[in-house]
Structure formats: C-alpha cells, structure tokens
C-alpha cells in the first residue's frame, strides 16, 4: 500500500507496481488530469493545497475501507500539490483485485471517497478570475 501527497509529477506505473502481485488479475488505475475548461470558462492552471499531515492518513483510511469491502484488493494513491498545468496529472488511484469488476468498483469507490474526505483544495485560475473550489461551490479567491 502506498499513500503520497507530493509536489512532483506522479508516476502511475510506480503505483501499479505497488499493487500488482501474482494473485492479482486486474488492475484499475484512475488518473485525474487538469482540464482546460470549467464552468464554461477557459482555465489556465490550477493550484492544489493539502493539509498533508491529515491527507495521507485519510488516504490510508480509504485504503483500509477498500480492503474491508474487497478483501483481496491492494491499493495505492497519490495526489499532487502546488501549481499544475493543463493536462498534468493531479491524482492517481490504483487498485488490484483478482477479477476485473471488483477492481473497477474498488477504484471508483476510492476516488469517490477521496474527493469527499481527503483535505485537499483546488484553486482555479480561469479567464474570469481565480476561484477556490469548495465541494460543488466556486468562490472567489482573495490571495
């Protein structure tokens, strides 16, 4: 298992190397990338800020929950912070399981939970200004 908050690029293959093993038949890897648009506006870049001392334990908790639901699963997650350009990878969740459908379900559950419970925030630099994204809401940034 591996849970990282990092300022450098994320190598999804490294996470897959952590989860793969001779009993796994299926690896599902989700990567989130920076889109060039949001709310109908063009986006120039993002900043991600993390409460890293809490984010890593929260990721570990999600990994433990996945292993309770899918006992054969192995999990790795990484989230990047700092300035990210369009197309760069912000988050990777990789899950291995013996069979494919459980790998998809466990990986999807992992990224869904991460978006709910891991203390990381997105600041969007867009054509119409700079905004903090708070859950479903968009709020003008000050700094």
């Amino acid at each position, binding site marked *: 298992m591996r849970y990282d908050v990092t300022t450098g690029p994320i190598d999804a293959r490294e996470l897959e190397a952590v989860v793969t093993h001779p009993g796994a038949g299926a690896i599902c890897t989700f990567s*989130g990338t920076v889109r060039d648009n949001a709310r109908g506006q063009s986006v120039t870049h993002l900043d991600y800020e993390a*409460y890293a001392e809490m984010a890593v334990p929260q990721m570990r908790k999600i990994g433990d929950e996945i292993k309770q639901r899918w006992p054969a699963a192995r999990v790795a997650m990484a989230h990047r912070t700092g300035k990210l350009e369009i197309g760069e990878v*912000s*988050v990777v969740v990789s899950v291995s399981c013996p069979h494919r459908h459980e790998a998809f379900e466990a990986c999807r559950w992992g990224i869904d939970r991460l*978006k*709910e419970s891991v203390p*990381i925030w*997105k600041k969007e630099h867009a054509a119409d200004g700079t905004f903090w994204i708070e859950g479903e809401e968009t709020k003008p*940034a*000050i700094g």
Partner: protein
Amino acid sequence: MAFMAVAIAVRVRFFARLRELAGNETEALQVPPGSRLEDVYETLRGKHAALPLRESVRAALNQEFADWSTVVQDGDEVAFVPPVSGGL
C-alpha cells in the same frame, strides 16, 4: 500543590480559502479549559472578522475530522477547513 489551569493552548491551522480569509496559516491560541471546537472557532471569528459562518466550515482535531462539540485539550492541533475539492 494542586494547580488549576486558567487557559489551555491549542495550535490552530487554516487551509485554502479560510487561510486567505484569516490571513494566517498557523496561529497559537489560548482558550478556557472545557472549550469546544465551536468555541475555538467563534473566538477566532472574533479576531478575524472575514471568517465565514460555521455552517460552511469543517473542524479537524489532531488530523481527524471532529464534531463541533468536541472539547479541546492542551496541546491539540485544531484545523478549520472548507469543503474539500481534491481529485480532478
């Protein structure tokens, strides 16, 4: 010799938009013994008028999300955070 604390010290951390609104990332704060997270936050709102109402904020105590009614202890790390938006 018995000693009755008149204040406990907590370390406060703000993140994201709350950090910008507070104007601070980290802050040392003294509060009366028995203070709950909601009391800590209201004390801080007294100091930083721009901080939003509690409804749009979550509290964390020692790196775990916590109820607003949780009583803080001397030496605790308290964090106030907006709804999260990591991922993609």
